[in-house]
């Protein structure tokens, strides 16, 4: 997918907060929008039932009403972000909505994997750091992907875990499928000798 993925090494942005734990992928994009066969244009459905009534009118309680896509490209959310369904439509929707990174004290495994494959950066921080950000909305942050650091204005700089392979792919736009394809000989050899019965 990384042909579409822009090379990026630093994200400078203000934060936007959704102070809710266990935000599942059904919230990020409800199943009714999964009949698409495209991966583009899903931002309109992002957090759809949080933003809109059944008749399509906007909810006064819409927590994303004040989101400014021009300045707030970093989402800060509660713990266990992206739990539930494996739908990759969730990072596609978040990216199309205007987010480039999500900060949480914990990410669900499949969401994290899906996000990294699409250039949406999951930034895992200690609970204290997450709590600070959740208490201080619209904060200026600087995320350096190559150095795995998150700098928060007036608070400090923190390292976050990012495996070197993902960092390499993210910063250079290298594709994971290309990497596997480079090892085709080993795959063929495995299939020839070790393949379990099918």
């Amino acid at each position, binding site marked *: *997918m990384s*042909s579409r993925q822009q090379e990026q090494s630093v994200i400078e942005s203000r934060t936007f907060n959704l102070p*809710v*734990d*266990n935000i*599942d992928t*059904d*919230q990020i994009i*409800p*199943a*009714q929008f*999964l*009949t*698409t*066969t*495209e*991966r583009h244009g899903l931002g309109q459905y992002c957090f759809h*039932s949080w933003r809109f009534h*059944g008749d399509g009118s906007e909810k006064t309680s819409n927590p994303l009403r004040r989101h400014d896509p021009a300045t707030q490209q970093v989402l800060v959310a509660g*713990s*266990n972000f992206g*739990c*539930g*369904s*494996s*739908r*990759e439509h969730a990072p596609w929707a978040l990216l199309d909505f205007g987010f480039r990174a999500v900060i949480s004290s*914990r990410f*669900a*495994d*499949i969401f994290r*994997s*899906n996000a990294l*494959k*699409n250039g949406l950066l999951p930034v895992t921080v200690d609970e204290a750091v997450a709590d600070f950000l959740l208490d201080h909305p619209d904060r200026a942050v600087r995320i350096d992907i190559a150095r795995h650091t998150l700098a928060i204005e007036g608070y400090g700089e923190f390292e976050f875990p990012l*495996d*070197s*392979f993902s960092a*390499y792919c993210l910063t250079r736009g290298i594709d*994971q*499928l290309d*990497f*596997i*394809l480079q*090892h*085709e000989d*080993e*795959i063929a050899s*495995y*299939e020839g000798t*070790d*393949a*379990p*019965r*099918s």
Partner: protein
Amino acid sequence: MSQGLTLFEKVWRRHVVREETADTPAILYIDLQLLHEVTSPQAFDELQRRGLKVRRPDRCLATIDHSTPTTPPDADGTRHYATAQAKAQVDLLHVNCAAHGIRLHGWDSPNRGIVHVMGPEMGATQPGMTIVCGDSHTATHGAFGALAFGIGTTEVGHVLATQCLLQSKPRTLGIRIEGELAAGVTAKDVILHVIGAIGVDGGTGSVIEYFGSTVRAMDMESRMTMCNMSIECGARAGMVAPDQVTFDFLAGRPLAPAGAAWERAVADWRALASDPDARYDRLVEIDATRIRPSVTWGTNPGMVIAIDGLIPDRADAAARDALEYMQLRGGARLAGEPVNVVFIGSCTNSRLGDLRAAAALLQGRRVAAGTRVLVVPGSEATRQAAEAEGLDRIFRDAGAEWREPGCSMCLGMNGDTAQPGDLVVSTSNRNFKGRQGRGVRTVLASPLTAAASAITGRVTDPREFLGKKA
């Protein structure tokens, strides 16, 4: 002497094409990829864009289940999809599978069904395999001692093109469950209890192995129900070591080995069980004798109580928010709440044993006035078997709807949804806000609890019906 290996480690080691390094994840070989219409279109697109072929169509198995209607077709065969886009998605899977030589079990197949019901029924799911699908409930197949997990669409494309995945080795979580289950308590109650105990993120980063006397005593359907919901505590996968119960289930299935190959396979499968001195990164002990029929009261699968217990009186924001959405009060009972809809189905609980359990309660009884009951078998084969023993008649006579196989109201993307504000007692796996329709309140439960609630029209402890004739 080297440390013994867990079931997971044995399966992992058999499939490493290239070891993990400091800079790169392992390349893991995938024996079987299951495909369905929702999470595959963009993966096939990517292959086409790059000019790649499907490497091993013989290691793919496809079905249609999520976007498909569960109402019968018209006399002329017309199916009533929720939207034109849903039909287009199903049609596209037919096009993609035909173009790449992949076996697709569509409307005309006697095997079509929910992907996680169909695979085991056909014998495609076997011990020691690596199995993936663009669906988080792929962990179901771990009941056979396979390493099975859900992946995203980009990874579906990776497996289509290379039959491999990049993976970092997960941690292991052993869950030992000991003791006999009380009457009226099922595998669904066990897994809800486990998720309630360790939390919705208690398994994150881990592969679970379920073991202990309770697990050994379970049939394959029960083991599937339990492994199915491993993702609901955040685990990548759930596994049970294969044993005679597993082999007896698989013997004679269309895609299982036969003849001399069967004997060799069973000998090989027996060696997969965790060694006695194997260690897990973390171990959790569960006393099964204390488990009661369990239900969820909130908006994630970790918000669990015993059905005769009280809704927790918690002051935290998550609980307050969940109670407000569910229109429930902390400190009150959930049992007795009026029920609008009962859904018996999903990859968690739509197999023959689930349908038999629900039918046993409903036989000779009536669904409560004002309560709608949907029974959706997991596959065509399950439907045929259920109809052969008259279960459809029992459900219909009781006033329930007997539908065609599919995911249906588990996630409602085929239009099988409830109305805003409805309380649904559901045998599915997720009670997230809006999952079964906008504003719908979901209570996860076993088929027994669902059937008992259908009869009374209220959330009901199935033990009230135990041993009682209609």
